Every structure is written in structure tokens, then in C-alpha cells.
């Protein structure tokens, strides 16, 4: 038996749900979309908030990953370190070494930490296999999932090094270690075999501590480990706090974005569901009167109308949870591939909280009008639709009637004033939809601008290098949650362990200069310098010639225009407490120069503090590459081939540049923005649809009268569409500035999360025409939402409409 019984009440509920099919479907669909949006937004908020923490917890991540010298600490000694006070769990020792494998195409991968583990699980660092299987025998290797790509897949074979006779390693799986304890894994026997061939070896131990949440605690834990073994036995340690910081830096960028969309989705869901439900009950007053007249008690009426809202809403909620999960999982999967970690499935409590909250909203939204219906005097309820309406909106009809527009249009324009609350809900739905669309357009434009600004070298048509390009390693795996530099012969390190032949930069320059078709070019090298006040080395790009075409976007100041100048990223300014105009002392090899900071570059490409200066500051610096712009009409490919033919015998090479693809995080955020926007706009459209359905139902008799006195279907349609057009215009006028403001609010927060300010091209992404079109988007949402009921009204038979009460 149903909640509402099989008796008269159940029959009333069933007939109410069945008879008002459009409304039932709208309630179900609007609720479904709202819940799906909320599930997607909620799950992304949860995932974006703590992907590393989730993964680390699930994998029993290693607080300290320690490398010991096996010659100074035996396996038994190391096993004992797991019993030290404060150690909650330990794993190892695992043999560990460093390898630089070479793939079939001859590309050498970056140096990888290879750890010998017979299984991925253990008390600490339960490495998760993403695909394939674990290595079972020598000759097999499992790589970190970030290496997976078209050229490196399961079944592919790598050579352990570029040395003659280096053993082949077949890739059997890809895995993720949240703690980043290794880049690759093989059987212990395989690692031992590599060690015997001269690779360095270490014993890796993984520890979890009772107290390891602060840097001080980690330092104390490390001291305990060092003290437990002989002097010099502990070669190095890696703290989980450093790994977490790197991971969170990338994740943090997505949090403000997802929060903004999540908040939009939730607010819209509440508005739409409330207006749908209260409208549904509100339009049934006459039926309520009849029910009371034939003996239903007020309580039964309340229950009946609560049920009529809750049944389709319940179905919509259930479908919404399913849809939300289906939509969220691929997004989370993408997110996971970027963050690295455990599968980021929709958090169970999101699947419980969202439908529960939606049900509560639906319940409250239905209860208020249902209680009103229950209290309504029978005679008043029956009179609804028969007695003439008075009051609301008449002034608007009078005023609109004066406009020099066709009468059906002016009649339609006045309609919203008849139901101010319903109109307000519709207006909010359109405004929120426009906010979402405006924000999403701005966000994707900003992300595109960030993407293109991150690889200034790719703007050059041809790159001419002083080394052979096949000696250059493919891109390193993306850092956790962060961005990655696109492959670039200039920024890539020369990978061959054998001494590669390097062409004389002067000869390469001469080849470029003398080559017909050379438009302009500049030289560049990437190197390490010392900067007074910063411990350790700092990455520096040194330029020869006019490098403006390869400049980074500037947050403030300007690009280098000569010697004695340096451009630095935001992080550099923060770390050194300097500002534009200050002078820093930079040492390259044995030369020192005092350089004035002239610009703040927009650079999120690495966590390093990369500075940019003129090569002429350091007499000994020489370019390792030349970035060439060819003359108009010259084929870059042909140009590169000709230059390569000249300089390859010297040891150099030339290749064309292709614009770098967008980074994973940017693509994911763009995809999320598009998906969430589509969902929010759909929900907004459904909100309008529902309101117009209610309006049209209520006014069907009036429309019948209009048709009877000669209003054509087209005029009827224009009347209904005009009734939402003003709402669309106002919604657009509210939504576009709000979306613009949201973009201006969220983007800098996202920038700060990754340690940079944002330059004007990233922030000022809206064109006036674009804003105008987005404003019209409000009208589009409103008109599309009203199109179905408008068509229905236009097609409604006049005789039937006239009989409708």
C-alpha cells in the first residue's frame, strides 16, 4: 500500500499526478537537473578540496620516505627502525635505484626512481594500480600513471638506459603513489640486477608516524631515524608535507572555481524547486476547493498536495542522483589523473546529503502552499477561476498598452506583473543562468589565455638548437595537481648520458642569419644562476637579441629591453621581498651582474623561480637555441628542413613548433565549466518553462477569449514569448555584471592559490560584444524556456480553451 493509501486520498494523488502530466514532468525534470547539478558541484567541491588528503589517507601514505645506504644499514637494522617509538607503521626495505630508460623511438625519459617491490600493497604506501598489473618477474616494469601516453603504454618496451646491452623492461602496468615514493616499480630481483650493472642503489623505507602533521614533528621523526642507524647511513628523506604542498597548490586553483559553480548550482536548485512546487500547488486551488466540498479534511488536502509534489520530485531526485554520479565520475576520473591518487568517486555523503536536502526543500516548498490550500475556505477555492481577478498587474497592462508595439506584445509584457513572486523566481533563474554562462565564458577565456601564455617559445615558427633533438627528453610527468611545461627543446635537458655533440652557437646563428626566409629570431638558453638572498640555484632564461616575441605576459612592469634588467615571477618578488625597481645581484657561473627588476612575469609553468634577463649581462653565456620567425609565405617545415641540413652535421638541429596543447588542469576546468554551465542554464530554462506552463495554464481561458476574438496563433505565441522577454532582458542585465564580478573575484583567488597574480590578458577577457551577447543569453534562456508552452498555447483549440476554468 502506498504512503497515501489505496483509498480516496491515494486516488486523488494518483489522478493529480497523472492528469497534470506536463507539470509532473517539469517537477521531475527540474528536480532531477537541480539535484544532478548539486551532486556534480558537491562532489567536485569535495574532490577539489582535498584530493591529496583523500588519496594519502586511502593509500596509507608515507609520512617519511627514507633512503638508506645498504652498505651502512642492513635489512635487519632497517626493519628495527619500524619499531622505534612514534612509528605507527613501516614498510621496506625496498631496493631502490635511479634509471633513465629510453623508449623505442630513442627518447630518453627523465631520471626515474625505480623501487623493487614484489607487491603494490603493504602497511605503508599502498600503491594503486591504475591499469595493467604489478611486475611479477624481471624484465617487467610498472610506471607512474602520469607517464602513460600514446608512445608509452602497456606492452611497450623500454631499455633501462641508453647503454649498449641495457636490459629491456616491458611495461606491464601504470600505478599511482600518493606519497610519490617512486616513479617506477619492478621486482626486487630486477632492481638488484640493475644495481649489479652499476646503477646506484639505496634501501627505501617508508614510515607512518603517530605525529607527523607539522614540519617540526617531521624533523623530530627524521632525527629519530637518523639516530637509529649508523652515521651516514641515512642518505635522504622525503616529507609528505612537501608532497602535499605541491599537490595542494594545483588543487587549490580549482577550489574557488568549483565553489563558485557549486554555490550557483545550489542556490538555483533551491529557487527552481521552490518555485516549481509552490506554483504547482498554487494552481490547483480550485481542485482543492472541490475536494473540500466533497468532504476532504484540511489535513487530507495538505497530504494530497504534498504527495503530488513529492512523488514526481522524489522520482526526479532519484534520477538526479544517478545522473549526477554518471556525470561526476568522468570528471572526477579526469581530476584524478591530474592529481594522482585514489579513485575520486562521488563521496557517499554527497549522495545522501544532496537528495535529503532536495527533499527537504521540496517538502518545505510544497508545505507552505499546501497549508494555505488546507486553510482555504471551500467557497473561495471553488471560486478561483470563476470570479474575476482584481488588482495585481492592472497598472502594468495600462502602462504597457501605451507602448507603440503590437497589442499581443504589450499584453504579454504586462503579464509578469500579475504574479510578482513567480516572476521573481523566473527572474532569479534567468539571472543565475546568465551569471553561470558569463562566468563560464570568462573562465574558459582566462584559462585559454593562461594556456597560451605559458609557452611563449611555441609562438616561434621554428626552433633551431645547438644539439640534436632526439637527445632531448620527452616532457617530464606532470607535477601533482600543477601545470607542466610543454615539451620544448629549449627547456628540455640534454638527456643522453654519453657526451652529445654540441654545435657552435656562432655557426648555428650564422646558419640562421644566412638562411633565406628568416624573418626575425632571438637566441635563448636556460641555465641556473645564483641570486643573492635565495638559497640554492635559480632557473634563468637568458635571451640574445629582441626577445619580445617570446616574452611572457606581464602582470606589471615590462619585458626586458636591454642589459641590466631582469623580469621575475610573482613568487620571486614574494620570496625575496622585492618589488619592481629593486636591484638583485645575479651570478652566472663566475660572472655577477646587478640587475634591476623591470617586470613581473605571469608564470605558473613550474614551481621554480624562473627569471629572465639579457644574455649580454654575462659574457660567457651562449644561446642553446634560436627561436625563428619565418618571412611571410615561407613554409616553416621547408625552412626547418633546410636549416637542419646545414647544422645537423655540426651537431645542431631544427624543427617547427606546434602550438602547445592545453594543460590537463585547464582542460578539466574548462570541461567542468562547460558541463556545469549547461546544467545550470538547463535548470534555468526549466524554471522558466515551469513558470510559463503555470502561467499559460492559468491564463488559458483568457487566451481562449483572445483567440475567439481574433488573436492568431502567431500573435498568441508572441504574447507568451513577450511575457518572458522582459524577464530575460532584466535577468541578463543583472546576470552579466554579476557573472563579470564573479569572474573578477574568483580568478585572482585562483591565481593566488598557485602563487601568482594575474595579468590583464587573463583578467580582462570580456569583449563588449561578448557581454552584449551574454546579456542576450538571458533572453535566449527565457525564450527557449517559454517556447514549448507558447507553442502549446498557440495550438490550443479555442473552443477547448474557452471551456477551461
Amino acid at each position, binding site marked *: 500500500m502506498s504512503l497515501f493509501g489505496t483509498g480516496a486520498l491515494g486516488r486523488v494523488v494518483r489522478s493529480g499526478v497523472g492528469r497534470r502530466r506536463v507539470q509532473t514532468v517539469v517537477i521531475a525534470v527540474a528536480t532531477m537537473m537541480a539535484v544532478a547539478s548539486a551532486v556534480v558541484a558537491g562532489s567536485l567541491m569535495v574532490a577539489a578540496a582535498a584530493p591529496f588528503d583523500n588519496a594519502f589517507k586511502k593509500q596509507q601514505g608515507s609520512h617519511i620516505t627514507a633512503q638508506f645506504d645498504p652498505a651502512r644499514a642492513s635489512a635487519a637494522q632497517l626493519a628495527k627502525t619500524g619499531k622505534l617509538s612514534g612509528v605507527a607503521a613501516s614498510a621496506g626495505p625496498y631496493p631502490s635505484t635511479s634509471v633513465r630508460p629510453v623508449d623505442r623511438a630513442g627518447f630518453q625519459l627523465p631520471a626515474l626512481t625505480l623501487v623493487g617491490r614484489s607487491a603494490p600493497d603493504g602497511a605503508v604506501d599502498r600503491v594503486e594500480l591504475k591499469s595493467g598489473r604489478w611486475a611479477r618477474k624481471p624484465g617487467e616494469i610498472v610506471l607512474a600513471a602520469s607517464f602513460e601516453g600514446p608512445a608509452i603504454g602497456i606492452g611497450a618496451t623500454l631499455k633501462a638506459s641508453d647503454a649498449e646491452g641495457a636490459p629491456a623492461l616491458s611495461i606491464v602496468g601504470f600505478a599511482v603513489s600518493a606519497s610519490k615514493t617512486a616513479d617506477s616499480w619492478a621486482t626486487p630481483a630486477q632492481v638488484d640486477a640493475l644495481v649489479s650493472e652499476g646503477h646506484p642503489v639505496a634501501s627505501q623505507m617508508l614510515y607512518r608516524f603517530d605525529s607527523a602533521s607539522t614540519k617540526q614533528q617531521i624533523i623530530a621523526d627524521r632525527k629519530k631515524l637518523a639516530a637509529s642507524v649508523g652515521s651516514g647511513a641515512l642518505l635522504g628523506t622525503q616529507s609528505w608535507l612537501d608532497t602535499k604542498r605541491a599537490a595542494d597548490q594545483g588543487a587549490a586553483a580549482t577550489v574557488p572555481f568549483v565553489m563558485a559553480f557549486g554555490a550557483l548550482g545550489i542556490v538555483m536548485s533551491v529557487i527552481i524547486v521552490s518555485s516549481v512546487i509552490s506554483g504547482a500547488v498554487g494552481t490547483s486551488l480550485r481542485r482543492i476547493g472541490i475536494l473540500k466540498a466533497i468532504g476532504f479534511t484540511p489535513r487530507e488536502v495538505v497530504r494530497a498536495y504534498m504527495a503530488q509534489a513529492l512523488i514526481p520530485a522524489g522520482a526526479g531526485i532519484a534520477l538526479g542522483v544517478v545522473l549526477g554520479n554518471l556525470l561526476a565520475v568522468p570528471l572526477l576520473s579526469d581530476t584524478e589523473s591530474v592529481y594522482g591518487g585514489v579513485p575520486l568517486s562521488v563521496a557517499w555523503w554527497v549522495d545522501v546529503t544532496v537528495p535529503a536536502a532536495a527533499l527537504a526543500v521540496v517538502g518545505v516548498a510544497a508545505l507552505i502552499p499546501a497549508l494555505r490550500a488546507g486553510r482555504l475556505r471551500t467557497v473561495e477555492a471553488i471560486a478561483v477561476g470563476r470570479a*474575476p481577478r482584481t488588482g495585481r*498587474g492592472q497598472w502594468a*497592462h495600462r502602462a504597457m498598452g501605451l507602448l507603440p508595439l503590437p*497589442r499581443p506584445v504589450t499584453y504579454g509584457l504586462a503579464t509578469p506583473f500579475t504574479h510578482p513572486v513567480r516572476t521573481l523566481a523566473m527572474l532569479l533563474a534567468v539571472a543565475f543562468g546568465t551569471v553561470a554562462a558569463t562566468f563560464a565564458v570568462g573562465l574558459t577565456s582566462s584559462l585559454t589565455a593562461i594556456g597560451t601564455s605559458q609557452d611563449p617559445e611555441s609562438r616561434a615558427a621554428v626552433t633551431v638548437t645547438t644539439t640534436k633533438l632526439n637527445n632531448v627528453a620527452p616532457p617530464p610527468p606532470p607535477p601533482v595537481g600543477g601545470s607542466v611545461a610543454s615539451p620544448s627543446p629549449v627547456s628540455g635537458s640534454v638527456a643522453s648520458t654519453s657526451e652529445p655533440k654540441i654545435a657552435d652557437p656562432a655557426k648555428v646563428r650564422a646558419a640562421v642569419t644566412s638562411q633565406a626566409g628568416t624573418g626575425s629570431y632571438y637566441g635563448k638558453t636556460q641555465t641556473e644562476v645564483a641570486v643573492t638572498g635565495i638559497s640554492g640555484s635559480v632557473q634563468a632564461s637568458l635571451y640574445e637579441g629582441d626577445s619580445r616575441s617570446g616574452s611572457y605576459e606581464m602582470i606589471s612592469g615590462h619585458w626586458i629591453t636591454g642589459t641590466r634588467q631582469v623580469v621575475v615571477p610573482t613568487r620571486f618578488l614574494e620570496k625575496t621581498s622585492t618589488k619592481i625597481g629593486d636591484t638583485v645581484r645575479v651570478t652566472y657561473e663566475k660572472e655577477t651582474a646587478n640587475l634591476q627588476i623591470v617586470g613581473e612575469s605571469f608564470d605558473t609553468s613550474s614551481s621554480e623561480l624562473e627569471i629572465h634577463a639579457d644574455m649580454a649581462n654575462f659574457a660567457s653565456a651562449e644561446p642553446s637555441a634560436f627561436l625563428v620567425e619565418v618571412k611571410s609565405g615561407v613554409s616553416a617545415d621547408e625552412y626547418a628542413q633546410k636549416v637542419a641540413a646545414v647544422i645537423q652535421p655540426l651537431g645542431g638541429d631544427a624543427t617547427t613548433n606546434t602550438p602547445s596543447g592545453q594543460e590537463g588542469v585547464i582542460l578539466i576546468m574548462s570541461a567542468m565549466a562547460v558541463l556545469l554551465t549547461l546544467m545550470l542554464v538547463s535548470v534555468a530554462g526549466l524554471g522558466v518553462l515551469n513558470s510559463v506552463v503555470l502561467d499559460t495554464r492559468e491564463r488559458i481561458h483568457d487566451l481562449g477569449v483572445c483567440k*475567439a476574438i*481574433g488573436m492568431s496563433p502567431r500573435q498568441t505565441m508572441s504574447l507568451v514569448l513577450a511575457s518572458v522577454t522582459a524577464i530575460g532582458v532584466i535577468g541578463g542585465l543583472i546576470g552579466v555584471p554579476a557573472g563579470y564580478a564573479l569572474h573578477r573575484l574568483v580568478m585572482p583567488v585562483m591565481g593566488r592559490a598557485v602563487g601568482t597574480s594575474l595579468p590583464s590578458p587573463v583578467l580582462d577577457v570580456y569583449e563588449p560584444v561578448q557581454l552584449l551577447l551574454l546579456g542576450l543569453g538571458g533572453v535566449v534562456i527565457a525564450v527557449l524556456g517559454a517556447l514549448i508552452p507558447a507553442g502549446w498555447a498557440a495550438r490550443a483549440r479555442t473552443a477547448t480553451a474557452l471551456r477551461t476554468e
Partner: protein
Amino acid sequence: MHQVIELEGVAKRYDSAGAPALGPLTLSVAKGEALAVTGPSGSGKSTLLGLVAGLDKPTDGAVIVAGRRIDQLSEHALAKFRREHIGMAFQFFNLLDDLTVTDNIQLPAQLTGTSRRKAEARAYELMETLGIQKHARAYPGRLSGGERQRVAVARALVNRPALLLADEPTGALDTASGHDVRNLLMDLHRAGQTIVLVTHDLALAEACASRTIHLVDGHLALDTYAQAVR
């Protein structure tokens, strides 16, 4: 004599298996004639009115109004035809509560594209004729039944239609208001307006109509014109 309405073998079935709700019926109404259609509930009076107004389409036969066969027109063409050639007054007035009396009356004129000024002038002319000019700025909800029906008639006449259809125009009125409306219809008839009046009220039919037909189960049971001819 010029015929405003010509029905040729018109039948209307709502249920393909059942008996027709109306007809087959052949009938013509001349210009200036006032035809009263009487009959019990379910006799097909409203169906007949709906077919003549182009609100519904016959299952069989042809409906010709003002010289145009309207049963083959599209919805758009029908709407256009209706606003130019037919005025309708309903039992429950069917005025738009949101609009003032003037706006209600001038609405059909505005639908034809007549300028607001011209439509307003015509509305005032009709309000004066029908004695409701003092309610020009009022809303229908504030008027008595009789006044509302006058407004409805004024609206029906605003485009100077060839045909005025009145569906139980006194059915929702008290006696005094009913009397008012009866006089109004008589005046219109005397002025040469072609009228089709559907009513239960035989006294109204007798007073206002030059001819009466009586329908029973969708069939013509009485036609006073035919009787007179015989």
C-alpha cells in the same frame, strides 16, 4: 437576398462511432436577419455556434460565412477571418479582467493592426451608443453583469463584423440586466446587424429574433422561416 451564413450538410461528430452531435444540417442566414437558436441542453446549439464562429470544424459539410468557406481555413486564417467578420458575446462575458473596459473593447481592433487612437475612438463611440462610457476606465470586475455584457457586445462590434454571435447572453444575468441586454440586441437588429442568438430563453428569442430554429438531438426540429414560407 445576400446570405451571411450558409451551412451545407454540416455534421459534427465528437465520437466517430456515436451519433453526430449536430446535423447533417443545411441552413442559411440572410444579411440583417436575427436568428435565434433554441433547444434543450445537448441539442447542438453551442456546437452550431462554434462551427459558425470557426472555433470548431465540421466532420462533414461546408460552412460558409460572409461568402467564405471557413471550414477549410488554417488556424491563422480563421483567427484573421474571425476578427474581421465575426463578433462574439458569451454567457459569462469572457472579458479580460486585467484590462480596462476601453482596452477590452478595442482589443479586437488592435489585433487587426488598427492604431490605438482609431481603436480607442471606435471604442468610445460604442461605449456611448451602449451607455457604458462612464465605465471607460473601470475594470470588468467592478461592473454589474448587465454592464459587463454590454462591454462584451461592444467588443464584439468594434470591428463592425458582418455577424454577431451571442451565446446565452442573458444566461448569467438577473432579470433587470437581462432586460437591458434584450433591448440592446433588439436595437442592434433594428440597426441591421445580422445576429445569431443561442438561448434557452424563448421570450428573448421571440423579442430579439426575426427567425427561430429549434434543435433537438442535433437536428432541426423547427424553423420559423420555413414555416412562414410554407
